[in-house]
């Protein structure tokens, strides 16, 4: 492709949400965390697209869906640099960045087999005690979990 001949890699969206700059290797995890396979509206999934910044990226264009902040924060753990564009009538009306929330509910599994959360039908709760290095602390058994040891539910 010549540099002055620009071409959209996937089609534009009328109303909905575009989630851009998803690391390719996390794309399908993002799809599953956001429960996208349960939506009935048209969805375009771009995978292994060229990206100047990232080399290879994924993109999701979801028609007719606007996420709540706590819904999209679910993916901040695996794709923190993602950008969300809210589209209304083909225009970007809002850009959202993800933020790791102070607390994570029902997203992460506790790694302690003796933790009450692994033995009772209940939600997990973690406090994010270090946002920079991503360290979590179980609200129940008080186990601290480092980024590389995080297991999603």
């Amino acid at each position, binding site marked *: 492709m010549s540099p002055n001949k620009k071409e959209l890699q996937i089609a534009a969206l009328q109303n909905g949400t575009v989630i851009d700059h998803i690391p390719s290797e996390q794309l399908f995890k993002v799809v599953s965390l956001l429960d996208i396979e349960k939506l009935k509206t048209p969805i375009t999934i771009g995978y292994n697209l060229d990206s100047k910044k990232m080399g290879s990226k994924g993109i999701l264009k979801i028609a007719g869906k606007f996420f709540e902040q706590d819904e999209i924060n679910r993916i901040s753990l695996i794709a923190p640099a993602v950008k969300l564009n809210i589209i209304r009538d083909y225009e970007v009306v809002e850009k959202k960045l993800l933020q790791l929330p102070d607390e994570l509910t029902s997203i992460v599994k506790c790694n*302690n087999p*003796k*933790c*009450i*959360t692994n*033995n*009772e*039908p*209940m939600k997990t709760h973690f406090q994010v005690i270090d946002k920079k290095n991503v360290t979590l602390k*179980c*609200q*129940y*058994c*008080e*186990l*601290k979990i480092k980024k590389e040891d995080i297991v999603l539910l």
Partner: protein
Amino acid sequence: MKKGSFVSVADLSKEDIIRLMKKTESFETNPNQKLLEGKVCATLFFEPSTRTRLSFETAINRLGGRVIGFSDASTTSSSKGETLKDTIKMVSNYADLIIMRHHLEGAARYASEITDIPIINAGDGANQHPSQTMLDLYSIYKTQGKLENLTITMVGDLKYGRTVHSLLVGMSHFQPQFKFIAPEELKLPDIYKQFLEENKIPFQEYTEFSEDVINQSDVLYMTRVQRERFTDLIEYEKVKNVYILKNCMLNNSRDNLRILHPLPRVNEIAYDVDDNPKAYYFEQAKNGVFARQAIISDVLGII
């Protein structure tokens, strides 16, 4: 501290600890105070612990309250598969307060979220045993006349010993200095060292249990080195007799030094230490009743 429950030492502020110390002191002076007249306290011991249960039940009786409960979960519905939630909900209908011990970590926190009556954690697996910490803190406060600026030496199993970890957190408000003496396999975990560094609390680590370190200490906190903690039994055989306190090691120790031990002891304190006035572990256990009276009256908002 979250109002109404007593779950973890980490929830306690400096003011909470000082208030509980003063209350404990008042119960030591006057143990029989009928503050729980007409109240029913449940002691739910999903995991047996005779010592802790008797201490709590003595505290309730001295306060004039009544006790219901069980000392072994095998006689209850939880052995039929009832969830903790259902047991707590059911008992909440009967009692004004629940004191619980459970083998799962975080059980007391969860219980405190599903009921409106106060929960006191009497031990949740390897996680927390905060009433033990209060009696340890009170023993230090009473024997040293203060909690501030003390040098505390901890000996033995610093890796798995939850009383050690909770005492670190409880003392962290009072500018302590720590010395840790443990075999390589049972050293203090990194997360606690990080905690001390973040709170700018100085500490030194040793593998040798020497008189030199004892002589620099105000409090000597002994713990049991358990055989089952070792992956390498040759290593256990090497260290099992190294961390034993003998009376002759105390000859040049400070006058104010006191020896604490959460009990039960096996062989880590030689019996000749028992007659030394610096041995405090039996009085320490007695302080447990007063400390628990203070905790119970505190969570119920009485006095």
